[in-house]
């Protein structure tokens, strides 16, 4: 199953932050690593899709005052999610290999 770039970023962020991956920490992680901060809505819409596909599961944390008494929603990658992410990243690696063997080069990037 294909993953969008945002979905890949989300899943990698969740994997790196587990078990403390929730909306803000995921957004911050993506911003730190890619320089682009996805909006809260697009993060949750994508997480909703991933949850529907069975790639992530959500669990509720404790409410805090700073959150207006709302609970955090922590996300974890499922085994099928990890498998799909690995295959998706391998596909990108494989495409990069193809470029390398043909002497291909992206502007400003070493492949």
């Amino acid at each position, binding site marked *: 199953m294909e993953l969008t770039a945002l979905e890949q970023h989300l899943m990698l962020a969740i994997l790196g932050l587990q078990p403390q991956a929730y909306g803000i920490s995921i957004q911050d992680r993506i911003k730190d690593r890619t320089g682009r901060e996805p909006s809260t809505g697009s993060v949750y819409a994508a997480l*909703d899709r991933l949850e529907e596909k069975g790639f992530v599961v959500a669990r509720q944390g404790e409410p805090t*005052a*700073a959150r*207006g008494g709302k*609970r955090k929603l922590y996300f974890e990658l499922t085994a099928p999610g990890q498998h799909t992410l690995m295959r998706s990243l391998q596909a990108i690696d494989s495409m990069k290999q193809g470029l390398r063997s043909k002497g291909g080069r992206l502007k400003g990037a070493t492949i």
Partner: protein
Amino acid sequence: MSKKKPKEHMIAWRLFGSGLSLNFQDECATLNAARFNVDIPVYLTNYDQVLERTMNIQHAKMLEQLHKWSATVTHNGADHPSNGDVDFQGIGETDKHIFIQATVSGTQVRIADEGIPPEPPKVADFLLTVFASSSAKKDGIVGDINERFARECDQMGVSRARRRYWSRTLHTVWPLLSRAVAKAVKWGAVIEGVRRYF
């Protein structure tokens, strides 16, 4: 005559101290419904460690009673109940925070630093609630935006934080709305397909 339900307030305590365990007890007799006891049995190993606890206060007027609290200090495992080790100097308030100032064993410390963030715009909160797909998601989304709002109130002031809250809300609603529409269309197509079949 119907009684109006008292508004719930969530209070987060931050406790700063060294080798201290504090036990707060409310002495408020006038608001029985709001009577509570908070136990913070954690030993702090260094001064910079911050302990956060949350509790519900069922009436805003409780805040006025805070100066009446008594305390027991447990220092290095030994209890020192109500012996003057803790002297509360009362409650202070700024536009952003409510805090409690006290003296512990003759040393001036800020033993509680309350973080009641200013309330975020209600309409924005309502919009997020409407478009979230489930109540757990709603809590996650609204909570995340509230958490950023509280952080930004400290960093850049309430009015700028409010503008950013609105902007963040509007940027959040659109993807949620698209997702809701996509789901509805998908189910609509499934239902239509089943109808045609039969």
